[in-house]
């Protein structure tokens, strides 16, 4: 029968869709905040799943009832036919009430989580390490003022140590995201934004600029190395002793030229005021370069 065929294939399409969705969620490779390497990403993942579960009371009835209705009330089907039935107080209460309750719960949850997970709020676990981040076309500069080193496109973080990033951009709007650690914040010229993160699983991850900023936008990713505290200290010492160049005015000016570095660069200094200089420069004179 034609109708039956439509309905069956409709069911099949839906089942396929759900399967695809399930597959896509469960089968994610070990990437992204779904497989977190830090507490922020973990909290965001948990929040994501909790929303999914809380949505079930409103969406499951639809997914269950809709196919039943389509089948039962098909033309020449067995269902009773009441063309003038247009209102029912019970249903009204249900269809307004249920979403209101769910949104109430989810909204409360949203508020708590948003305040709790404010990217500007330091994470527990001691005094956060400061890192200043400058987005250039098409690379990232990381300054470690406490350690006195800087890097381009390589971010070393001690495991389990909270980090506070201060970000700005020396070009256009950019967006800073380390998928495995969660969180995302814009880096904007002439402005400073903040992001608190922590890595609690040692490993090598990828960091991104997710905001399109020209032809080499795709290349503007950086290596994130979450390493044990001792290795981190050893790395800092290594950078200082290895004869890496200082980050002087000339180097900073060179970074302004749009380019994609072949490999990460290391610098043996993190001059005071370099970050503020970029912010100031953008505000008054405009970003140079291009």
């Amino acid at each position: 029968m034609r109708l039956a065929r439509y309905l069956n294939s409709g069911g099949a399409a839906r089942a396929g869709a759900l399967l695809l969705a399930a597959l896509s969620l469960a089968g994610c490779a070990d990437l992204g905040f779904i497989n977190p390497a830090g507490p922020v990403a973990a909290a965001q993942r948990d929040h994501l799943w909790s929303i999914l579960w809380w949505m079930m009371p409103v969406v499951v009835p639809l997914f269950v009832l809709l196919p039943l209705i389509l089948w039962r009330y098909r033309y020449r089907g067995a269902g009773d036919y009441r063309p003038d039935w247009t209102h029912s107080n019970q249903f009204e209460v249900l269809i307004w009430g249920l979403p209101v309750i769910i949104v109430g719960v989810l909204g409360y949850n949203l508020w708590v989580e948003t305040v709790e997970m404010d990217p500007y709020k330091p994470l527990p676990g001691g005094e956060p390490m400061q890192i200043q981040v400058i987005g250039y076309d098409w690379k990232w500069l990381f300054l470690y003022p406490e350690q006195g080193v800087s890097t381009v496109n390589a971010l070393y973080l001690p495991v389990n140590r909270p980090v506070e990033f201060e970000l700005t951009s020396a070009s256009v709007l950019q967006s800073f995201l380390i998928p495995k650690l969660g969180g995302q914040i814009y880096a904007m010229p002439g402005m400073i934004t903040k992001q608190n993160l922590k890595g609690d699983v040692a490993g090598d991850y990828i960091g991104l600029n997710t905001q399109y900023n020209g032809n080499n936008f795709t290349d503007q990713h950086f290596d994130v190395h979450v390493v044990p505290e001792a290795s981190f200290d050893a790395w800092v010492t290594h950078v200082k002793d290895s004869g890496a160049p200082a980050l002087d005015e000339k180097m900073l000016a060179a970074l302004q030229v749009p380019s994609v570095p072949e490999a990460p660069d290391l610098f043996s200094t993190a001059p005071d005021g370099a970050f503020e200089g970029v912010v100031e420069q953008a505000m008054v004179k405009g970003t140079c370069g291009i």
Partner: protein
Amino acid sequence: MSDWYWIFGNLKWNSLVFFHAFESPSASEEIAAGAALMVILGGLWLVWLLTVKGWWRPLWRDWLTSPDHKKIGIMYVVVALVMLARAVAEAVVMRLQQAVAVNDPGFLSADHFGQLFSTHGTIMIFFMAMPFLTGVINYVMPQQIGARDVSFPVMNAVSLALTTAGAVLVMVSLVFGQFETGGWTAYPPYTGIRFSPGEGVDYWIWAVSLSSIGTTLSGINFAVTIYKERAPGMTLMRMPLFTWTTLCTAILMIFAMIPLTAATAMLALDRYAGFHFFTTDKGGDMMNYANLFWLFGHPEVYILILPAFGVFSEVIPVFSGKRLYGYTSLVWATMAIAVLSFTVWLHHFFTMGQSANLNAVFGFATMTIGVPTGVKVYDWMLTMYRGRLRFTTAMLFSVMFLVTFVVGGITGVMLANPTVDFATHNTLFLVAHFHNMLIPGLLFGMIAAMQFWFPKAFGFRLDERWGKISFWCWSIGFYVAFMPLYALGLMGAMRRSFEWYQPEFLPYLVVAAGGALLILCGLIALFVQLWVSVKHRDQLRVPAGDPWDAHSLEWMSAAPAPEWNFAVIPEVHGREAFLEAKRDGTAYLPPERYEDIHLPAHSAMAPLIGVGALALGFGLTWHIWWMVAAGFIGIWAVVIARSFVTDTGHVIPADVVQREHERWLELVRNTPAVDRGVEQQSENLGHAEAVI
């Protein structure tokens, strides 16, 4: 600056896209040149066709200068379909590029890819979705409220002309120079003159400005029409749901397009005159742009979706053989959505570093939109409950919308949470989400509208077989194309990426590309359906005018409807006016007396303004100042000249109306009323047997 600057502005020989394909041949350049060639050949073919068939005069006399809302509506939809074809093709090219670009540059250049995602978004929103829904509203709404036309018929034609000029400008960018690469939102400072010095952003600015001015005028027109032109007895709470959603959309258009116009104007001042609204220096602030743009952008989402909601509220009851469940709830839900849509714009930039409390307020507001939307979904489901469902193509698209839209709603509620948004903003998760809202929530609605009202407009139904083929391609294609994007987004795959470095992404990207191809098949099937239906129109005719046993007033006339819509303005006594009339047996009764009908006269004003607007936009883009002056002065000269025309209407004598109307009534009497079981067969001549 060349010697020819005063004539050609910045336009040069090598602005022609072919020049690059010739000079430095590559796959990317050749695709661009091929697209340009298609635009030119398409144009030439059209000119040839019009000439050979001798259609120039009828085109001008019957269509371009026509103030008839029905014809304007049809022309809007034609623009939308042409632009849809281009934007879908672009999507397919982008998906293919991404699928082959894992640790490989693929076949497109980065710059070309940037233009593709920018034109794809710009076209889909401004030149596909907006004209499509404006066209459907234009065609249906005045008939649905029992009016002869919109309140300002010539202004209606001007809206169409402005929108079309914008669309043509986007098409022209395929041939001359480049489009911008900053996406459909064109965020400065990237789109400022310092970082995007070329003509691309200017194309975007002027195309979008023309379209947004046209849309503002449409909004005013629709709102006034609904407030002032309703048939006697049609109180607000008796208006069909589609008219209600039109009213809300019109209000949103009036309020929401202005911030966009202001934002594009300011961006233009930055670029042309060295102002500092959004530059990185001298106190410019791009955050203002983000606020202005999304102050438009979020209501825009509901401008797009509400008319489709209206379509589903018409299609589902008709094909359920039942009245709409929960009319009052649906009206309130629609109004609630329209109001709430202005309170959520900040959720497009939770990541801009504002305080947590502010993010929470906007996140919460966003989530509350889920309530009225959820209510609507249940209302449609309950409309089907205890009905007798007939699965025509229009109904299938509506049902698939329900299912798919709910999936998008789930991810929408997720994204309303700033915490989740931080992790997924700018990723493919977001891309999947808004396609998941707009493909079912806009496009399925518009396709359903086309299937549903096509017989009204042209007098014959669309072929159901090809319609269903299209339906399955669209539906399955949608899931195959976009479910993998959700997964990719959760894995940290960013949007607008023309190349990848994570081999893990490959299988997902390949599947998504397959889905895009399926969607392309769906689109092709839609065009085949049109062609097949025109070819077999004799078997699909429904001259009596009521092929679906429908409920609202627009069906109470012949198909296609006469120029004056109704011989006598109907008197409305209830919600489903035509259904009531059929039940009372008054639907096909001759009126007591006929009167002369005054209709607006044809006017060349709109097409002339369209040409002027195109000259203005093109001249501004390329700095051809004489063309700018000519376009600007031309437009206002036409407007002023028009104000001196006193003969702005023509009269249809009562006896002509009577003759036409009685011929139709006669036809209905002689047409056998058919049972819904043969609705999709050639026995259906548009006279429905009363079922309920």
